[in-house]
């Protein structure tokens, strides 16, 4: 039952071995090209592809173009990629955990909860600075997700997929209403908080990267380690228990990893929605449902998607920038509609 809902047109067994390697290689080269384009495309300062390469591989100079690539573009591209990887992996984990094809940080209110936390801290306790915002994001996201899981009765066998999603929507609406309220009450911060809510990597610098990568890498590795358990989880509670799995612990572990991944990316780039929803489905269509192969593919695809969205965000209203998250939401929402039509 659960297999059929998650499964896609491609049979998992055919996507084995050889093809998998080639496809991963293809994805990797796509990612590298996107990263390279991201280094110079749509810059307010004229930059060319060769300049970008020179800035990366030759001796550092004090030229403005050189410094822009090194200090602004490179960390931005890296953060975009890593955030995409984290969110996509988190989405895959959530879908595996709940066996719900619509599960993702955005739909389940984690983003909205994190956003509420940040909005509250930045409007009422601005003195707490970035650290305060980070912890508020983690706390808010965690509380929202726990609530959704409790409300949707996600743990019950045969839990209604719709109920879980509606619970997520209700909690997201609650958080959204409170976020709006706090923004209206503190008029000055409105634009800043909204940019943050949409999710943007425009202000990602090396410090952001240094804060992000250790946590994100740990989370991604933990996710990979959990991949075999997720495979077992997919066959159903009963069988999983028969295979000697301790369901409660696995679920707890997956939940914590999801929270770590989402919080790390929310702190780095704000709440970028729809990556966690879209990417796992794309990856499943390309690479099958084995989580050991699926999760690395999700990382690459998610990274490519957010990088592309960031490039697009610079292009749509050049020379001013549109947050990558806003662009992704515009792309992602129609996909969400399509998913509902085809997967429920």
């Amino acid at each position, binding site marked *: 039952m659960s297999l059929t809902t998650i499964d896609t047109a491609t049979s998992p067994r055919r996507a084995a071995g050889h093809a998998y390697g080639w496809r991963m290689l293809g994805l990797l080269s796509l990612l590298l090209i996107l990263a390279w384009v991201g280094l110079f495309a749509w810059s307010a300062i004229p930059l060319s592809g060769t300049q970008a390469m020179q800035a990366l591989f030759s001796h550092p100079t004090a030229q403005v173009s050189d410094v822009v690539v090194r200090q602004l573009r490179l960390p931005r591209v890296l953060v975009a990629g890593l955030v995409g990887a984290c969110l996509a992996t988190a989405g895959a984990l959530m879908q595996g955990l709940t066996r719900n094809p619509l599960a993702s940080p955005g739909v389940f209110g984690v983003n909205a909860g994190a956003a509420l936390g940040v909005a509250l801290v930045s409007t009422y306790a601005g003195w707490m600075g970035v650290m305060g915002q980070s912890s508020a994001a983690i706390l808010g996201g965690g509380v929202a997700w726990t609530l959704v899981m409790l*409300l949707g009765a996600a743990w019950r066998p045969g839990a209604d997929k719709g109920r879980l999603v509606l619970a997520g929507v209700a909690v997201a609406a609650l958080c959204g209403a409170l976020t709006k309220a706090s923004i209206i009450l503190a008029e000055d911060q409105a*634009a800043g908080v909204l940019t943050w809510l949409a999710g943007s990597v425009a202000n990602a610098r090396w410090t952001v990267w240094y804060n992000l990568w250790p946590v994100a890498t740990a989370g991604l590795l933990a996710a990979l380690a959990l991949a075999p358990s997720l495979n077992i989880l997919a066959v159903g509670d009963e069988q999983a228990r028969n295979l000697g799995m301790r369901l409660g612990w696995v679920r707890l572990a997956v939940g914590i990893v999801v929270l770590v991944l989402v919080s790390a990316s929310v702190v780095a780039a704000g709440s970028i929605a729809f990556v966690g929803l879209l990417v796992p489905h794309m990856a499943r269509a390309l690479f099958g449902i084995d989580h050991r192969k699926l999760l690395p593919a999700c990382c690459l695809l998610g990274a490519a998607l957010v990088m592309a969205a960031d490039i697009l965000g610079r292009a749509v209203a050049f020379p001013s920038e549109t947050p990558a998250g806003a662009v992704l939401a515009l792309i992602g929402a129609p996909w969400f509609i399509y998913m509902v039509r085809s997967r429920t």
Partner: protein
Amino acid sequence: MSDLTCPSRHRQLTLSPLQQRVWLLAGLLLIAIIANLCLGAVDLTLTQVWQGLSAEGEQYFTVHEYRLPRIALAIGVGAMLATAGVLVQGVIRNPLASPDILGVSQGAGLAAVSLMTLWPHASIQLLPWAALAGGFSAAVLLWLVCGSKAPPIRMALTGVALAALYSSTIDFLLLTRPLDINNALLWLTGSLWGRGWQQLYTLLPWLILLPAALWLSHRLNLMGLGDDSATCLGVRAPRVRLLALALAVGLTSAAVSLCGPISFLGLVSPHLARQLVGGRHQRLLPVAMLVGAVLLLIADLVARIIHPPIELPAGIMTALIGAPYFLWLLLKLR
């Protein structure tokens, strides 16, 4: 008389505590109305309020031109949103459903925000009409995407997905035009500020949908038994569902077009009403209307008097009052 038609399992409710509750609610409504007339940035005595009702009175503007239409509008809008909530929950058969999941409020919001940001010089009088058109277009789009035979839960999910599309577009517009953010957000939160007799007259024709909803109540009761049983009892389930949803769309669009999407009212009022008088729609609908009216009146009152002369949007208050109750209720329902 409608008791004759209802399934026997509802008979176990004794009438007298029920009546007590309804009277209590009516009393609350009266108190809320009087409080709304007397309290505000300027507090008035009952005598002043009475004098203010006549054109010669000193407080004529505050009482007759400002507070009175606002109260009437709050009652109307509260009742409409609550009714829409009952209809949607009855048809989708899910306690978490609300008019919001049809994407109507968000569609109306998108239309309103587009007008505000893309044509900032357009007349403000156009705003309700744009919102109304947006709400109806959203409903039509939902119907086109789902088809009429979609199972209710799928319809709800499609509505949620469409709502996500509208909200992302709203965010996109707000982000590319930062100067209008605050005005747009104010509208999007839902507010009764500055609404007068003119808005009330615009609302009046829509109130006809309320008795129409009551007229459906018997069939909604049967729908609660499941599509199959309802069909056996002679109800054409898909048709009733379509009618009920169309009513909900009309009610929500009209309410939202005038006051903006007031959050949680459509979600919470049906639950509160159900706790008071049970699930029979003949009783549930009128009581839910009362609850919705009382809630919105209280929310608007609090929004006006919490920090005078600052006026907060009533939508913030309904969220603050409604959301915790809703969470508590859900955790209990589980």
